[in-house]
């Protein structure tokens, strides 16, 4: 039996490789999620019934079913419709599409939380609808929704662990593989748990807090 120190020496490179894939999946997943969130929130607030309906349906379907089911559907069923995705792509796409649906509600909530007076002032000052959104409404909404987005990004990071189930070689996958060759379960899974915790607490949370402070300074509040 290896000691924990020897275990780390032996398997750290493999775990590190997995961590890099997890970070890639997380970064690409965030990209997809943000795009989906903004698009779907805009659709849900659109003045036309058909567009609004599509936004609502998207959000309800993706929030109403499991990410794992969606991922398998994208990976195993979409090829039957002629769309074959590589497992890496299917992985972050599923994660982004799913978390994006949750993000859409945050975007909508943030925009609706901006006081009406701000709209009225922008209209009174003769801003075009686009400038009104870009310069007045959205920056304030963004500041309001950054804290819940911080939580959502941690959910997203955790969600990327599921891509291991379609054989993307992320941190989860590596720890599973190490476990099946060494049977040192506590060490393999425990180390992976700690790495996930470190990414969440030392990268995602402080990163979001930094972003929040920068935006608050830019809007010169607080």
């Amino acid at each position, binding site marked *: 039996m290896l000691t924990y120190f020897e275990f780390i020496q032996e398997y750290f490179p493999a775990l590190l490789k997995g961590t890099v894939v997890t970070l890639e999946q997380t970064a690409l997943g965030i990209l997809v999620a943000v795009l989906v969130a903004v698009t779907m929130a805009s659709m849900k607030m659109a003045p036309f019934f058909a567009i609004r309906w599509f936004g609502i349906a998207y959000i*309800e*379907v993706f929030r*109403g*079913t*499991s*990410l*794992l*089911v*969606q991922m*398998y*559907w994208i990976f*195993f*069923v979409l090829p*039957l*419709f*002629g769309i074959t995705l590589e497992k890496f792509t299917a992985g972050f796409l599923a994660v982004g599409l799913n978390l994006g649906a949750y993000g859409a509600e945050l975007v909508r909530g943030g925009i609706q939380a901006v006081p009406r007076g701000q709209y009225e002032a922008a209209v009174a000052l003769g801003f075009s609808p686009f400038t009104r959104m870009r310069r007045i409404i959205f920056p304030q909404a963004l500041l309001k929704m950054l804290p819940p987005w911080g939580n959502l990004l*941690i959910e997203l990071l*955790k*969600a*990327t*662990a*599921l891509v*291991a*189930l379609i054989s993307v070689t992320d941190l*989860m996958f590596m*720890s*599973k593989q190490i*476990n099946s060759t060494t*049977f*040192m*379960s*506590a060490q393999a*899974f*425990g180390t*992976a*748990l700690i790495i*996930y*915790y470190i990414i*969440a*607490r030392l990268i995602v949370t402080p990163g979001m807090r930094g972003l929040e402070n920068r935006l608050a300074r830019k809007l010169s509040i607080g």
Partner: protein
Amino acid sequence: MFDWKWDFTIEILPRLLDATVNTLIAAGLGYLIALIVGLIFALAQRTPLRSVTFIVRELVEFVRSTPLVLQIFFVFYVGPQIGIRLSPWTAGMIAIGLHYASYLSEVYRAGLDSVPKGQWEACSALNLSVRRTYAKIIIPQAIPAVIPGFGNYLIGIFKDTPLLSVIGVMELFQAANSIGAETYRFLEPYTLVGLIFLVISLPTAMFIRRFEDWVRGALGMKKLYAKD
């Protein structure tokens, strides 16, 4: 290309519905564990013992920031390593129960914190016992604030039950996997699983909103969704 087979659909539907029962049992049992352990976690963070508060706080943070699927593997495989053999069901229930307990402990905490400080002070001014303070004053006012959180996590735990399939718990998703492995058909089983999830989670979400309004009404508070 697109070839949905209805006779195949009819054939596998009973099997999937049977497995749905297991999914509901897993979600219910896991939620029950989460409700009880979550309350313990929340109360442990209100004790005057600094070290207990600190340890529980860190534990909750750790569990909340790491993937559930990894925790399920951890519980299932580490048990035998230290001489405890757990069945997939037991390991799954422990993992999912503890995971959601740490989420629910935050809901409990937020609920208790949402009651204005003046209410506590009034209770001590009126010399009410700790029990009566909680039972008659604090908890009734905290309830409307916690219903959305509890409701969301109830649906959340339900949607996370497919993760139990990774250690072989025979729930809905695992049933679809077996059907796929036996018949090489994935379109119908996975689509049906998605639909079954949708058919259960959407009405539940609606019911929770109704319930929140009903409670608010019963406590003489303003309704939130009455126009829906």
